């Protein structure tokens, strides 16, 4: 608390009225899983597109006892993650961590941690475009009706277009899901690799879109099904390689260019997961030679 008081900000930056308003919206969103609830988004001290929606949600649910983890593309040490973590250190004076299982609140951009989430944890997704139907139907009035009446044939059309053009469903991130068998939802630009993790997850999953001023949510243990066709079933990405650092074969891998002579390596995008495995003695093909610092530099460059 002392940090917040010294900084002159109200706890967690937002005023209490705003937090109440957002919490009410969160309750509404949890009561109708996948439904995009509008909220009175506030101006935040950073630009739209940098996680203003996620920050407002985090600010509304975080308390002094919480432990915060912030990741961007799976990494704790990229620009966006570092900035947001520092922001909450300054305005809420909360403990922060890089360890997934230690965190009570995790704000994320583009990934779900590899380590399974548990009951009591909250994961907050930053959402650039909450409307999964937007590409196909530009009229907001119409998309709202489509949600209200569960008319989701059009989303299937988008997948059809993928198969027609590429021979398979080429959508690899922000892959549309049906939540609780009722609402079509954009899972934010996480890789479809992470989609199965949303299904029946014990944690509370909250989604905040700052520019569009929408909040939606998935309560614990809720059905989250990725759309597909009977003859083109949903599949996650897989790699021939293992993580070059920790030898993991079950995590989402980033391809990292290591030099200008075509050298490359595949490493876990979840830095915490990778570090933990190495600490436990797992060693990948290049794990012994490559210092940790170099790898993370490469990842920082990869992040937007």
């Amino acid at each position, binding site marked *: 608390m002392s940090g917040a008081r010294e900084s002159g900000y109200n706890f967690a930056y937002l005023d209490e009225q705003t937090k109440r308003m957002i919490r009410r919206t969160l309750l509404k969103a949890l009561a109708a899983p996948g439904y995009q609830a509008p909220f009175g988004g506030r101006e935040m001290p950073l630009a739209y597109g940098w996680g203003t929606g996620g920050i407002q949600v985090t600010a509304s649910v975080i308390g002094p006892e919480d432990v915060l983890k912030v990741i961007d593309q799976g990494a704790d040490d990229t620009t966006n993650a570092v900035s947001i973590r520092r922001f909450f250190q300054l305005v809420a004076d909360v403990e922060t961590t890089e360890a997934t299982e230690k965190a009570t609140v995790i704000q994320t951009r583009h990934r779900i941690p590899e380590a399974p989430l548990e009951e009591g944890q909250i994961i907050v997704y930053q959402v650039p475009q909450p409307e999964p139907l937007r590409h*196909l139907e530009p009229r907001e009035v119409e998309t709202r009706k489509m949600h209200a009446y569960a*008319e989701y044939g059009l989303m299937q059309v988008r997948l*059809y277009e993928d198969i027609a053009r590429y021979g398979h469903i080429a959508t690899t991130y922000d892959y549309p899901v049906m939540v609780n068998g009722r609402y079509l939802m954009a899972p934010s630009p996480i890789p479809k690799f992470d989609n199965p993790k949303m299904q029946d997850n014990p944690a509370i999953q909250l989604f905040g879109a700052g520019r569009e001023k929408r909040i939606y949510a998935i309560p614990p243990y809720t059905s989250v099904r990725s759309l597909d066709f009977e*003859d*083109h079933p949903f599949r996650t990405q897989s790699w021939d390689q293992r993580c070059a650092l920790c030898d993991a074969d079950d995590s989402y891998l980033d391809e990292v260019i290591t030099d200008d002579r075509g050298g490359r390596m595949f490493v876990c995008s979840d830095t915490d997961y990778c570090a933990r495995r190495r600490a436990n003695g797992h060693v990948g093909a290049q794990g012994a030679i490559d210092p940790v610092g170099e790898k993370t530099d490469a990842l920082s460059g990869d992040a937007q």
Partner: protein
Amino acid sequence: MSAAASMRTRAPLMQARSVTRSYGGNIGCRDVSFTLYPGEVIGIVGESGSGKSTLLACLSGRLEPDSGVISYDMRGRGFVDIQTLSEPERRMLMRTDWGMVHQNPRDGLRMAVSAGGNVGERLMAVGARHYGDIRGEAQNWLAKVEIDLERIDDKPRTFSGGMQQRLQIARNLVTTPRLVFMDEPTGGLDVSVQARLLDLLRGLVRELGIAVIVVTHDLAVVRLLADRLMVMRRGEVVEHGLTDQVLDDPHHPYTQLLVSSVLQA
């Protein structure tokens, strides 16, 4: 034979009674009544502002009449006053048992979606989830409307006006609706393209036994397509009857004027 047999017991498909709609003090359509039977093609002709488009909007549930009743024989439900349908029910009807062919293909097609996707959308909307089946059905319909199968993955914006209109028809007929509304389906097309489209429509409508309500100002369109004709003027139906009877032996002064104003084709 089956078409002939079904004629024996004639239950109407749609009934309109005293449908009236005005805009402020201006009359849209007034006191229009008719009965449409399955497989029947009704033409509504009249000049701009005669109320034919207002009437079509009311009949297709897109506009609420001020008074009057439009009832439709819904599959599995029997006659229903379409005004009592909820919006989702009406939208469902519009993409299953009804179809709508617009004058401007942009209003009836998704220009950013491939031809195959445009045709498949209605199937997916009613739950089709097998890509191979959907694509097969799309190919089947593109062939029926004489669109080269090579174009199945092209966007409609790369199509000619006539092709766009044919794609719109395929997109509508894929769920085998029993009633299709058409608003100037050949408007804006070259004469030679019009003929091809009309001929195609005529064949499909007869083959599938679809009822059609077609609004046009082009008497040649109704001559070729419609069994029956309603002539509208200033919001009212001034004459109706068998198409060839109304065109060849018009009784109302306005119909006589309309028919005599057209060059013999």
